[in-house]
């Protein structure tokens, strides 16, 4: 193995400068500091109790609704179709009806301005405990936006990007009406693809209209029956769907755990396919740059070393990390100072750092040529809208500095500074923060179901818009609030947000941290590896 057998020791705050990389023979050129503090025992017990009480009340409510004692707001099947097989089973929607409904006002909040550093929310009110909402007609102005994925602040309606897009809208219109292979391949698309390839440092690139669909439509083109996909346990739904649709065998390794990955690789090559023991046609490793629910950064140097040793192919999904990491904004490869040609398939989205929509895949020319002719998206899906293409081109040129300004460079620096400052202050206040020190996605642990709703509402009262996440996006007791730091946030805004968070944290007793940060090998490596076969 790779010498990852250093004895784990408890790290204290003062020890945070310990380099984990130094024991890996120089694979890491910078300190890699991640922490996932353990859930305090009392908190875990109380959380389970909380869910237990909610479940009991849920059954009670269902009973009352069935006996018509309580008014039923749930939509009902048509009279004429009452004898059809029911479309939903009651137990499938138990969680939605009884738990999600109570705190539903924290999600799907409509906005009516550009989602920049501050945003205007449409005021909603509910008179029947969140079953229906009505708009009061008022607007909550200038809410500090800690929820939108606006890492480099390109979500704006003024400036050079917006002017260029306006021009293209008037010239080309909004739609395209055809697929890439038929009549939908515009000159703008070709220009965009060349620019993306230059940005990433790869030979060639291809752009698609939707980030989710980029994964779900292209992984099936790259892997098929007889191939093996090794996927991280916390991968995004689009990667999981793409892997399932491909028909390959999927095996899951523990999150960001290189020993688990190496074990799976060795077992796969040595034993071959299950039962027949034929060798695998190819092995594809699916990982993400930044995991948005954990805030962790993939250990890319180790993954690349493993992939080279075992001759596997690496598919890197940089949805959150492109533009947000790295000295030049080129993503996690730039962050670690590695060679982009080492990653076989570099995938990413334009939604987060570029303020547009869509996804891309970059790699060698053979790969992209193959995708141009065999990708589901090129054949059956409408190509990208011209104004969106223009937005990506102008923002990417700005980040690269090719528009003649230093705006891009300044924003990248500002984001890095904001991230470090925000995380440090939150940790000092005593919250449990997950993830890597350099990741602009900051999950703050909340744990208890009632606190999820309370946190979201209290922050909104103080004019800060946050995102809270619970089950099923996270494990049941690990609910969290997730902040997305942006380059557009000034220090004053961050300070305002931090003081509000501290206030609410004291009010709701969220400062759980005991400063017992376990080292990054804390996730115990165990023998159970997961195997899931496609039928």
């Amino acid at each position: 193995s790779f010498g990852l057998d250093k004895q784990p020791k408890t790290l204290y705050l003062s020890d945070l400068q310990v380099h984990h990389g130094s024991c890996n023979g120089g694979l890491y050129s910078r300190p890699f500091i991640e922490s996932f503090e353990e859930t305090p025992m009392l908190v875990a017990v109380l959380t389970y109790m909380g869910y237990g009480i909610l479940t009991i009340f849920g059954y009670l409510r269902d009973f009352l609704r069935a006996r018509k004692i309580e008014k039923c707001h749930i939509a009902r099947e048509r009279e004429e179709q009452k004898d059809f097989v029911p479309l939903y089973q009651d137990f499938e929607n138990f969680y939605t009806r009884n738990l999600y409904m109570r705190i539903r006002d924290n999600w799907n909040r409509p906005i009516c301005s550009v989602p920049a550093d501050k945003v205007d929310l449409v005021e909603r009110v509910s008179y029947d405990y969140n079953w229906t909402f009505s708009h009061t007609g008022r607007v909550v102005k200038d809410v500090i936006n800690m929820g939108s994925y606006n890492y480099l602040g390109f979500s704006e309606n003024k400036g050079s990007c917006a002017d260029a897009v306006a021009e293209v809208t008037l010239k080309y219109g909004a739609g395209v009406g055809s697929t890439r292979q038929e009549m939908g391949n515009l000159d703008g698309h070709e220009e965009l693809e060349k620019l993306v390839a230059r940005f990433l440092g790869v030979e060639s690139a291809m752009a698609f209209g939707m980030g989710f669909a980029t994964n779900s439509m292209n992984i099936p083109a790259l892997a098929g029956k007889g191939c093996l996909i090794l996927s991280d346990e916390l991968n995004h739904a689009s990667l999981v769907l793409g892997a399932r649709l491909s028909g390959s065998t999927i095996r899951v390794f523990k999150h960001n755990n290189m020993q688990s990955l190496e074990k799976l690789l060795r077992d796969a090559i040595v034993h071959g396919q299950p039962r027949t023991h034929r060798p695998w046609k190819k092995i594809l490793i699916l990982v993400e740059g930044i995991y948005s629910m954990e805030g962790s950064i993939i250990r890319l140097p180790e993954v690349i070393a493993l992939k080279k040793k075992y001759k596997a192919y690496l598919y890197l999904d940089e949805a959150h990390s492109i533009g947000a990491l790295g000295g030049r904004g080129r993503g996690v490869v730039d962050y670690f100072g590695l060679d982009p040609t080492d990653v076989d398939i570099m995938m990413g989205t334009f939604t987060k750092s570029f303020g547009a929509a869509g996804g891309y895949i970059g790699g060698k020319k053979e790969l992209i040529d193959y995708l141009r002719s065999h990708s589901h998206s090129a054949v059956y899906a409408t190509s990208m809208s011209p104004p969106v293409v223009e937005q990506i081109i102008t923002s990417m040129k700005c980040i690269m500095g090719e528009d003649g300004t230093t705006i891009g460079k300044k924003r990248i620096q500002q984001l890095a500074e904001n991230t470090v400052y925000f995380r440090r202050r939150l940790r000092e206040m005593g919250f449990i923060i997950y993830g890597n020190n350099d990741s602009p996605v900051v999950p703050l642990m909340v744990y208890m179901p009632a606190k999820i709703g309370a946190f979201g509402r209290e922050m909104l009262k103080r004019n800060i818009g946050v995102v809270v996440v619970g089950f099923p996006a996270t494990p049941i007791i690990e609910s969290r609030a997730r902040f997305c730091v942006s380059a557009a946030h000034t220090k004053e805004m961050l300070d305002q947000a931090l003081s509000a968070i501290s206030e609410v944290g004291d009010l709701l007793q969220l400062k759980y941290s005991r400063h017992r940060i376990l080292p990054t090998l804390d996730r115990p490596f165990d023998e159970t590896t997961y195997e899931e076969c496609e039928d």
Partner: protein
Amino acid sequence: MIQTTKMASGQQWVLVEMVQAFYEAPAYHLILEGILILWIIRLLFSKTYKLQERSDLTEKEKEELIEEWQPEPLVPAVSNDHPSLNYDVVTGPPSHKITVNGKECINFASFNFLGLLDNERVKQKALASLKKYGVGTCGPRGFYGTFDVHLELEERLAKFMKTEEAIIYSYGFATIASAIPAYSKRGDIVFVDEAACFSIQKGLQASRSFIKYFKHNDMEDLERLLKEQELEDQKNPRKARVTRRFIVVEGLYMNTSDICPLPELVKLKYKYKVRIFLEESMSFGVLGEHGRGVTEHFGVSIDDIDLISANMENAVASIGGFCCGRSFVIDHQRLSGQGYCFSASLPPMLASAAIEALNIMEEDPEIFTILREKCKHAHKALQDIPGLKVVGEAFAPALHLQLEHSTGSRESDVRTLRSIIDYCLDRQIALTQARYLDKEERFLPPPSIRVVVTVEQTEEEIEKATSCIREAALARLE
């Protein structure tokens, strides 16, 4: 001493109790206990084995295997003259007059049915929206990605289609591909037409349900399958009570351009208790007096269809897609539709463009009749071309021209059709081939040329196009 004897007698007393219980126990109890004890003894002495055989190979052998293993190349090589590799390049807006590969042509290839791709009002609305909201939404619907424009568009679509609720997606392909797996899970049964488009096929694959294909537009074949299923149900009524069933059809089929027999489908729905999902990408904004699609065309009540899905990339000339129906059905997708929950929402300027397109459609319902007239005209004009046959309904705006006599090899057919298209491109008529993924389609349609009729084309232009195709066919189909 006394204590130990007391203890000993206590133990003896317990032992006596036990022996008594042993004699008093019923026979079956003793036999059961005896079997269990024998089973435990067997398990204790049987050989243990691990799930994955790891013990057989030595470390050295494993290293050798790892050294020797060679994977396939990541992708197979694609030759430079692969027909799908070299795209036609469009410079400038892809509207009625389109510049393809440097030549200005009349557009018979883009799905711009109502000519709204370069409509000034639509562009101005999109521009106004850009100035207010910027381009991207920077988040999924759940996390500050819901704009008031999205809510307005959903309301307008629901009102237009006269349903309770509508839900919008940011990508047309993902609409039906996310809707089907939200309702149909492992163990459910879906009856689908053979000519269903690729996005429906991907939705079915993601759902892991049992898929039963019936012959294209053949209601008797469908009824046969439904009757077979009924017989199966009688064998296992408990399972049948929880197995959901769906029929998935398209209004106007993209691959064959004909219409589905909706009234018969509705009769089958109530007879066999199956739900209908209707995909209306090609018929929304085309059929019906007000452009509401195939339900208006046949006069079927919209409540009889459980879910209508369409993309906004054809008649509506924007990007994205929507599903509409009763709230009971549609609301479920807000938490279970993968393409809705886990993806960024539609850029607001594209949503505004769609709202303006809806406005135009509502103000001027004449355009649908005009469009259908032009389609009929084109359909008639394309008849009697030697070597090519027209496939599709007379009022369908997207027709297929297939070779009457195939050469036997799909590759050479594709090349012949490409030469016809090149001939037409030289004479300023833009056409395209209908593209498919040969190895992935379940029922691969024969190669064809796609001819799209839009409301902006004049009669002269249609005449010019048809005569050009006729010449091309004569020239290239020897």
